[in-house]
């Protein structure tokens, strides 16, 4: 009789354990997140508040109750012999191996559609370089605040951040914009991992909609090479973020007044006119050619 009672109690206890996990029996080698919590409670608690906790609680991804081991691998050996050597740490793997773990779930999201064009992926920047996988809140898994985003990008792209200290710059240091307003860190079809507007138009148009057109009379470089043909978008000592100190220099480097159309195989080499550049009147081309981004009504971009 006592043995029957004992068997019943054991079965009841087993049932309660199963109920708590709401998951099927663990595969061989796995111990479940609750076991991880015993030693790593702080991480477990933080993780519980992050959006990654959906892996722990949802059945969709097949890791219910085993979120820790979805990235760190089976942890049974680690529980038997706790040391860094007995558990996989994605942050310490080669970037491709780390990314492979993340992409196991995240490849099925639009975020990564430009991954092959991404210089981050090509340069072996692992997902964990930017994303704190266990963290939560606006500065956690995915940075949300512009200042935090900029700080993170600047920690590697020091050169670029230095350009924002120039007097004319987009307002990133002021916290009004962030790097991801213009760049997609996961990759994009556009050069420099730039964001796009309305499917495939330049991301600059997200804010500079008045430059969008289409214009009846386009200025070729705007369409062929984009805004960076004339502007330094991060920052410049020159007005209007221009790549040269004065407007006429910007213009003359392409409109070089060569006598023959297409002598160099490039566009725009012929003189638009024979202006006397010694006169101040002709030293600022945009005084007259004011619709330099394209004109709706005038072939010479005068109005």
């Amino acid at each position, binding site marked *: 009789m006592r043995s029957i009672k004992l*068997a019943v109690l054991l079965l*009841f206890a087993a*049932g309660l354990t*199963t109920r708590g996990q*709401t998951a099927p029996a663990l595969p061989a080698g796995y111990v479940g997140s609750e076991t991880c919590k015993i030693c790593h409670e702080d991480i477990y608690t933080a993780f519980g508040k992050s959006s990654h*906790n959906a892996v722990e*609680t949802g059945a969709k991804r097949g890791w219910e109750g085993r979120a820790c081991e979805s990235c760190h691998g089976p942890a049974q050996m680690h529980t038997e012999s706790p040391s860094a050597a007995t558990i996989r740490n994605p942050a310490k793997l080669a*970037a*491709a191996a780390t990314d492979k773990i993340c992409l196991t779930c995240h490849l*099925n*999201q639009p975020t*990564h559609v*430009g991954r*092959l064009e991404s210089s981050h992926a*090509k*340069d072996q920047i692992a997902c964990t370089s930017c994303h704190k996988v266990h963290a939560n809140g*606006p500065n956690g898994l995915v940075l*949300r605040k512009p200042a935090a985003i900029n700080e993170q990008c600047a920690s*590697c792209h*020091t*050169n670029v951040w*230095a350009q924002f*200290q120039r*007097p*004319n710059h987009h*307002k990133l*240091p002021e916290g009004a914009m962030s790097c991801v307003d213009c760049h997609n860190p996961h990759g994009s*079809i556009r050069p420099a991992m730039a964001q796009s507007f309305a499917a*495939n*138009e330049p991301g600059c148009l*997200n804010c500079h*909609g008045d430059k969008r*057109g*289409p214009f*009846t*009379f*386009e200025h*070729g470089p705007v369409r062929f090479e984009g805004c960076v*043909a004339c502007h330094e978008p991060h920052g410049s*000592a020159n007005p209007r973020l221009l790549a040269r100190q*004065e407007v006429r*220099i910007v213009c*003359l*480097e*392409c409109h*070089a007044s060569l*006598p023959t*159309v*297409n002598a160099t195989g490039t566009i725009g080499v012929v*003189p638009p*006119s*024979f*202006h*006397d550049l010694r006169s*101040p*009147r002709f030293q600022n081309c945009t*005084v007259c050619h004011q619709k330099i981004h394209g004109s*709706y*009504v005038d*072939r010479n971009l005068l109005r």
Partner: protein
Amino acid sequence: MNRLIALILLVVPLMVPIHAQTPAPQAPAETTPAAETPSPVPSAESWLTGSVDVGYRWRTDVGGSLDTYRSIVNLGSGPKMLGADFTLTDPKHRAFDQIRVRANGWGDEPYQTFHLDAKKSKLYDFRADYRDMAYFNFLPSYADPLLSRGIVLNEQSFDMRRHLANFQIDLLPGNWFIPYFAYDRDSGSGTGATTFVTDTNEFPVPNTLRDQTSLYRGGVRFERSRFHATLEQGGTTFKDDQSVFQGSGTTNFGNVATSIFGQKTDLTNLLAAYGVRGTSIYSKALFTAEATSWLDLYGQFLYSQPDTNVHYQQTDTGNLLLQSQLLFYSSQQYLVSAAAKLPHTSGSLGVEIRPLRRVRIVQSWLTDRLHNAGSASSTQTLAGTGASQQIAALLTSSLVTNYSQEEIDVFYDATSKLTLHGGYRYVWGDANDAVLPPAGLMSSDQAKLRRNVGIGGVTFRPTQKLTVRTDAEVASSGGAYFRTSLYDYQKVHAQARYQALTSLSLAADFTLLDNNNPVPGVNYDYRSRQESLSLFWSPLGAKFGDFQASYTRSTLHSNIGYLIPQTLTPQTSLYRDNAHTATALFNVKLPTVQGIAPKLSAGGSLFISSGSRATSYYQPLATLWVPINKKLSLFADWKYYGYGEAFYLYEGFRTNLVTTGLRFTR
């Protein structure tokens, strides 16, 4: 009896997990187990957390050019809501799980922002973003043909604000089928100065600017375990109502002071207005897939077709000259109807193949093709001392570009600490720009793009404390669109990060671009180079504070030949920029006095350059934080802006800003 009890005890616990795995049909909302839904914040925590910073800013008088100060900094005096950051959490998960709100710079500030995230697990994810940006630009060195006469004016200046609003809602997040909808709005309005251009003179006149773009889009994302697809359809509406005017009763003599054929030209009345209306539709299809354990696929197809219709009306009076006919006239009416359409197709396909454990092969193909077609019909009616004259014209325009690139990259993990990367990219395209009928030298232009690029890179991580990355491109071109385009170039980028001590980390960044176009008539020689070093030091576990600093040295050297327009003699355009940029910030925890532990931050940035536009720009700052209690802090902030130019002395400025305020924390 005992057997019965044992059976019940056996069956009940076994049933519980089965029940737990079965969806609970018609379960009342209040009985939905909270444990099933991840709670961002435990219910024991406050439903509202966050802080708000309010204060008052004083700006001293701006020494030097106020216009330049407004063009570059533009911060003013007055009461400000400097920042707010709140999180609202509903422990009962009724309408939302969590709402996050942040706002910055409200109170007549140049950059006012507001952002809201609201989400409810498995139901919706909503984001709203609003920005109000001031755009003031009045730099005479940009466009002042009258400077030699002592008139400081920028004839292309702006004083306007841009308003950007974005709203997006994703439904059923976390599901495999996620519909989403979004609305974006970008608008600008304000005033400025521009020129009214005639054949022989340009007249500075005021203008008003008003444009608005609205973007509507919606789509669905299919997120299955091994593939994803997104289908999106959107469209925009656009309007631009710019006008240029000069009231009657004033005479504008323009930029030309000299007489032409014994007469001076002038403008006595002007009204010119653009009525631009545009629409567009666009489509987007994206997919990613893990075809097998060794093969991933990526692809996207993007298509947009914006178009515009324009009605331009201009009436002006004065003493003006039609140069082509040497005809003086006293009034003009100029009407233009124009239209343009720009179909634009882009696409990419790519695969990542992992044939061996240590080898990855990435191949991608990308194309981008646009074709703009425009037409303009104009009627110009001139009236003078004689009979009136009407000139009609019809112009068509075309702009085409077809760009493609193909790239293959091979990555080899030589060891777990060393990855080698090699690749090859071929870029090709053509561009055509034409306006018909031709006029003067302007008719059509075309160019071809052909570029071969070799790619290499190394990633080396010998220890967890040190990472070194380098990548390089070497390119050779057989054609380029513009004289300043990339042609034969070498590009190098290297980064290193080193955790020297637990409290000290160092980072270095190096970039080099060397671009040459040796084609006769171009002779372009361009080299830019930047080197940076940054450090972060937090001694004693940041017990007393921390320090971060960076220094960047950059040089840019550009030579390109051109012919001086009036003499057609060869000239070289030289551009030089040698710059030093430094940033630093100390955060110091000051001694505690009567339980109050103040903190001081000090630092700032400096930029000094020599060369074609020698400039200095200093922004030192200091901030003192005094926490009064857990919910209230006092702060005081000082910042100095000093700007100077070697060649345009009249554009320098300097000023101090002092802000004091309170931070309320909950």
